[in-house]
């Protein structure tokens, strides 16, 4: 046993994969067992639907036209949510690069905007959600704004720190080969900052989902978060659970894509840091 559980255990390859699956298997087995028990007791029970019931729900939501609107609700919800997430996070990323890069290069600009960015990053975004709904209405703008405000300050600060970490030798070197400040910023500093910014993006995505679902829960007509909170009224766990799994899968997928993108575009980054 100590071969496996000891401090010096060699857990590699298939062994680590196998061990990693164990908690999932346990969860599924316990769920099936509990669900069967409850349904045997009361076939109308909604709390722990069987996999068959969830399958039917997915069939109904994703592959059948909605009777009232003629839409495939699951995909419509997914599209609406991803649009908000993409625009909000995308704008935050662009903003962070523009501001963070200039903050890192120009001490005066940093002195001017640094404290403000820090201040905004301290505001709990959910606390200003009512303000956003009141001032921007209940449409797309407020939701996108929440995601933007929730992620942009952190991203900006991270980009700034990444620029600040670049040795001053690099900047001097660039100037001695004839770079102008703008060329220095976009040809030398930007490429060295992007991999770090992509890493930060992965980290803030979790928060972005939170802001998205919170704003959809409060006021929306479509969206993954909207749907979950809508069907909660009917205790439709057979819809909620597949939706949660789907959101988790999407989050996992984006994280994986960004990671792959980072290592294929900026392979030098992790290597050089060693």
């Amino acid at each position, binding site marked *: 046993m100590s071969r496996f559980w000891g401090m010096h255990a060699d857990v590699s390859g298939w062994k680590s994969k196998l061990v990693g699956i164990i908690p999932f298997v346990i969860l599924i087995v316990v769920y099936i067992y509990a669900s069967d028990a409850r349904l045997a007791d009361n076939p109308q029970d909604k709390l722990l639907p069987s996999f068959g019931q969830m399958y039917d729900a997915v069939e109904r939501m994703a592959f059948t036209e909605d009777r009232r609107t003629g839409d495939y609700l699951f995909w419509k919800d997914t599209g609406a949510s991803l649009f908000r997430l993409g625009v909000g996070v995308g704008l935050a990323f662009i903003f962070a690069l523009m501001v963070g890069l200039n903050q890192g290069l120009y001490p005066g600009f940093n002195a001017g905007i640094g404290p403000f960015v820090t201040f905004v990053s301290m505001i709990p975004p959910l606390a200003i959600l009512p303000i956003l709904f009141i001032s921007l209405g209940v449409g797309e703008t407020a939701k996108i704004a929440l995601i933007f405000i929730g992620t942009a300050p952190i991203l900006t600060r991270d980009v700034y720190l990444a620029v600040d970490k670049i040795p001053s030798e690099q900047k*001097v*070197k660039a100037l*001695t080969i004839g770079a102008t400040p703008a060329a220095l910023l976009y040809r030398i500093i930007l490429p060295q900052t992007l991999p770090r910014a992509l890493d930060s993006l992965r980290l803030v995505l979790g928060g972005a989902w939170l802001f998205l679902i919170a704003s959809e829960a409060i006021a929306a007509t479509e969206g993954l978060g909207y749907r979950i909170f809508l069907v909660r009224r009917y205790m439709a766990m057979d819809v909620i659970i597949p939706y949660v799994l789907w959101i988790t899968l999407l989050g996992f997928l984006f994280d994986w894509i960004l990671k792959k993108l980072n290592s294929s575009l900026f392979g030098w980054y992790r290597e*050089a840091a060693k």
Partner: protein
Amino acid sequence: MEKLIEIKDVDKVYGDKVVLDNIDLNVSKGELCTLVGPSGCGKSTLLRLILGMERATRGEVIIEGKNAPRPNKQRGIVFQKYSLFPNLSVFDNVLLAKRMCQSPWASLRSASSDEKDEAMEYLKRVRLEHARDKKPHELSGGMQQRAAIAQALITKPPVLLMDEPFGALDPNTREELQVFLTELWEENNLTIFFVTHDLEEAVFLGTRLLVLSQYYTDDRGDGFDGRGGKIVFDKELKFKGASTEIKDTDEFKKLIKSIKEIGFEPRILQHVKDFNLTHPDSYQTLTEIEHRNSK
């Protein structure tokens, strides 16, 4: 000889710490000038003044007849570390330097074959043609510094500044690069200003040896402790272009020993008026208090 660098009465003070104290120095074209001194004496500070990264507290730093501008193409630089851009291959590092020095935005269009040929030519010169597609982190320390030299030289700077460029290398690689640098200097008529704390390296490489040191005295009295680095030795050398065997000769060793006493020994204090400043370009203007009670 044409003066590339002129430094007149330069002080550099950080807070209340005097780092450089009334430096006078001219450097002519074609020189391989080495600056040596104990660590902390202000060598890098002097180099930063020449490079334009910082301004002198007092006095003038003049590059090609004009007050030292901020870092630009007039001065190439090789640092001990971080001279290469880590995201670019060796070839792209050199190519970027070539294209950037023509126009800051030239690097946005694709490179012409002339530009590529020239970059390759410089890689050959530093014997790195086989490593052209490697990223800096894949190179040994010596190769990185050779690449950095190629990157600095391709812009054809009037003067190449180097701050402890071989300081992080093992002794063999270091010696190999010393020989390599003298060859490059000779073949390409370069002007080099080379900073090191390694006395042997300075004496071996230079056509002119400058010693910067805080261990000296003047008529402000021996108890005066706010003394900044000063050039205490400035002489033409005749070892240039020699093989490394010269390092074992008596003459070489004797010079090293005497400079150790002059510049590196805190207990041996030379008076400002007794400095050996015999290089033709050398000059010294002392302030009144430095030689108040002339002996």
